[in-house]
């Protein structure tokens, strides 16, 4: 056996592993350790966050003024679609999976994920998929093809049936990303079901794990439907089938049904891990136990179930019959009930607590306020009568960025600031963290608040040029977007700085924390909970 490092030697001696411990790139290619894989997921997500962000800054630059200044409409269409696919599939989802890899074994007292080799494969499918998604941009520079997928991320037929080879690249990228997500989900479910420490019943499971459990079930139930839909798209394009081709007896609306059968649960897939993490952060910095644990678990389950039966509210204007419109309107609005339960539990956890406002708590509070706005504007869009006006307008764009940036990305940042000291053993630079928070929150609202007004005034989404009366709000939004984008460099620097060094973190890290992961040293050894703790 090679003795590449004393740590590896130590691990091998202590745990009797017979396998070799390669160093360098091979170590990362072959690792089956949940902490290493979790770190790779998070770093990959951060890189893709900047890739997707650069794309949308180009879009915002074009929208700074009316008229076409920087790019042709075809390229604009490619940027908006790939921005969304990258942010959803290559940034937010891998970030959440990175959290799961790092935290779930630590939180439930498991030595590792249940299926470590599948875990490795799940991660290493991501870089090829991200390459497939963005490669057509580079190929187009060399005159091959006509660029990336230009249909928007929803890939609606018949446009996607007629589109160039970018659509095929996107279809294969989605297949691979889907396989990766399904592998990750199966691993998480098996880990949570089989590897909980003795005495940890399901109703003692940390809420973060509960949130991820529901996400994992949603993923394995809905990603295959998306895989089926894009497979139909592929055969329609190349193999003479007519699933979505009206001339051959198919139906383009069918694609919308199939896509959103996946697409709406996807919103909860992105948000449930964040909702699971919030109570941990809020309870820590309020120095109080989580309020309403059971209520939150049942709310997660209710949202998971409701999430798969409301999909058609994404195309209420497609000509659905009135009974269907009413059903989808009421069922969509019903989701606000379990979501309100979560909001009240978060607030009640803070109620009369001894609150302090470290960076993770600031992000959590920002999340609650801004995500609340996403929920309220979502109720407006769910209303069939109002949606007829707001559908496909900038109101929708603003709404889902309040949900997915303020809800998703800021939620992930909450988790990073909260857990990074545990992972690295160093405290985060609080000054820079707070600067990052305030810049993010202010520039986020500067970017997206005007888009509500643009939408109310009738500006449609997905257009590179617009009428003159929209110029001022678009200029404000672009300025906000550039501040928001460049503020994220502070985040990258803070993370890098924290990895490199800093004030030593204690095992507990934060004063008010509770849970198994805080019993381990900071940073935890490569192999932790080799002997499972017992929960009394």
């Amino acid at each position, binding site marked *: 056996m090679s003795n590449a490092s004393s740590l590896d030697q130590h691990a091998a001696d202590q745990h009797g592993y017979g396998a070799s411990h390669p160093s360098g790139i091979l170590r990362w290619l072959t690792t089956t350790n949940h902490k290493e894989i979790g770190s790779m997921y998070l770093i990959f997500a951060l890189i893709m966050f900047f890739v997707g962000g650069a794309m949308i800054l180009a879009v915002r630059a074009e929208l700074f003024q009316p008229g076409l200044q920087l790019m042709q409409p075809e390229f604009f269409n490619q940027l908006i679609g790939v921005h969304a696919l990258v942010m959803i599939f290559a940034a937010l989802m891998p970030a959440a999976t990175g959290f799961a890899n790092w935290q779930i074994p630590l939180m439930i007292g498991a030595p590792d994920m249940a*299926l470590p080799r599948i875990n490795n494969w799940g991660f290493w499918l991501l870089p090829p998929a991200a390459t497939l998604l963005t490669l057509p941009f580079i190929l187009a520079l060399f005159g091959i093809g006509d660029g990336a997928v230009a249909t928007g991320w929803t890939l609606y037929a018949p446009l996607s049936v007629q589109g160039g080879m970018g659509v095929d690249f996107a279809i294969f990228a989605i297949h691979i990303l889907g396989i990766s997500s399904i592998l990750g989900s*199966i691993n998480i479910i*098996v880990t949570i079901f089989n*590897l909980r420490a003795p005495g940890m019943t399901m109703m003692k499971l940390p809420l973060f794990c509960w949130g991820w459990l529901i996400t994992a079930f949603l993923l394995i139930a809905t990603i295959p*439907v998306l895989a089926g839909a894009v497979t139909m798209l592929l055969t329609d394009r190349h193999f003479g089938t007519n699933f979505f*081709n009206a001339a051959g007896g198919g139906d383009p609306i069918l694609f919308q*049904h199939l896509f959103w059968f996946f697409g709406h649960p996807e919103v909860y897939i992105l948000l449930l891990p964040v909702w699971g993490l919030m109570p941990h952060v809020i309870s820590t910095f309020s120095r109080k136990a989580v309020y309403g644990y059971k209520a939150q678990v049942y709310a997660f389950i209710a949202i998971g179930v409701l999430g798969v039966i409301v999909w058609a509210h994404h195309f209420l204007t497609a*000509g659905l*019959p009135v009974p269907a419109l009413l059903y989808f309107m009421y069922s969509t609005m019903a989701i606000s009930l379990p979501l309100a339960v979560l909001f009240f539990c978060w607030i009640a956890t803070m109620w009369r607590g001894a609150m302090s406002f470290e960076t993770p708590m600031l992000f959590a509070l920002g999340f609650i306020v801004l995500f609340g706005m996403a929920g309220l504007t979502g109720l407006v869009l769910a209303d069939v009568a109002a949606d007829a006006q707001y559908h496909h307008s900038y109101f929708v764009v603003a709404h889902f960025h309040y949900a997915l940036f303020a809800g998703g990305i800021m939620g992930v940042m909450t988790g990073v600031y909260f857990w990074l000291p545990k992972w690295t053993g160093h405290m985060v630079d609080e000054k820079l963290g707070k600067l990052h928070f305030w810049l993010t929150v202010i520039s986020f609202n500067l970017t997206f608040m005007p888009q509500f007004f643009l939408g109310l005034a009738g500006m449609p989404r997905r257009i590179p040029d617009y009428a003159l009366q929209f110029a001022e709000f678009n200029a404000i939004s672009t300025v906000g977007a550039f501040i928001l984008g460049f503020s994220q460099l502070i985040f990258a620097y803070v993370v890098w700085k924290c990895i490199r060094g800093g004030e030593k973190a204690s095992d507990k890290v934060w004063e008010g924390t509770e849970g198994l992961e805080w019993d381990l040293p900071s940073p935890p050894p490569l192999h932790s909970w080799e002997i499972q*703790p017992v929960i009394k």
Partner: protein
Amino acid sequence: METTLPSTAPQPRDHQRLALKLLMIVAAAFAFGFALVPLYDVLCAATGFNGKTRAGMGPGGINVPGAVASPPSRIDLTRVVTVEFTGTVMPGLPWEMRPLTNTLDLHPGELHQAKFLVHNRSSETIVGQAVPSVSPGHAAQHFEKLDCFCFKQQTLAPGETREMPLTFIVKPEIDADIRTVTLAYAFFNVGAQKKPLKERE
């Protein structure tokens, strides 16, 4: 690490068993995605959602034997329904089409025929397919086509003009509130549908 007991962790075999069960859910969900294709068709045909007419087409736009409805037993002379006809030629098909009858007043239950005039203004032989839609949507299930040029693909020689007939019955069960039914056709170019937009007209 405080209290510890000998590890009672489940064996890899337990993991595999659970993972296989979850994989079966994945496979079922994939199959469900494809099952939704006929399921939506059944739902639309049964309820008339999406303006789908009853004596409908099978896959590929071909009339399915046995799908043709039986003639209605009675004619409702007490009321009159106006049927409007309209036709659109989709982009990529250099044809023109117009109904020879714009509107028709009829009693529910009567058998009627209407014709469309379709002209190929290009110098090529082109195959087209008409796709019907009925508004309001909930009238669709009572609008039965006994024969229709939309049941199969139509081939027009260069410059050819043809009358295309349609035989139909508005069934007496149609809602009393409905006084006007619109039948709209969209003609698609079967060959050009899958060509990239740029290569099309």
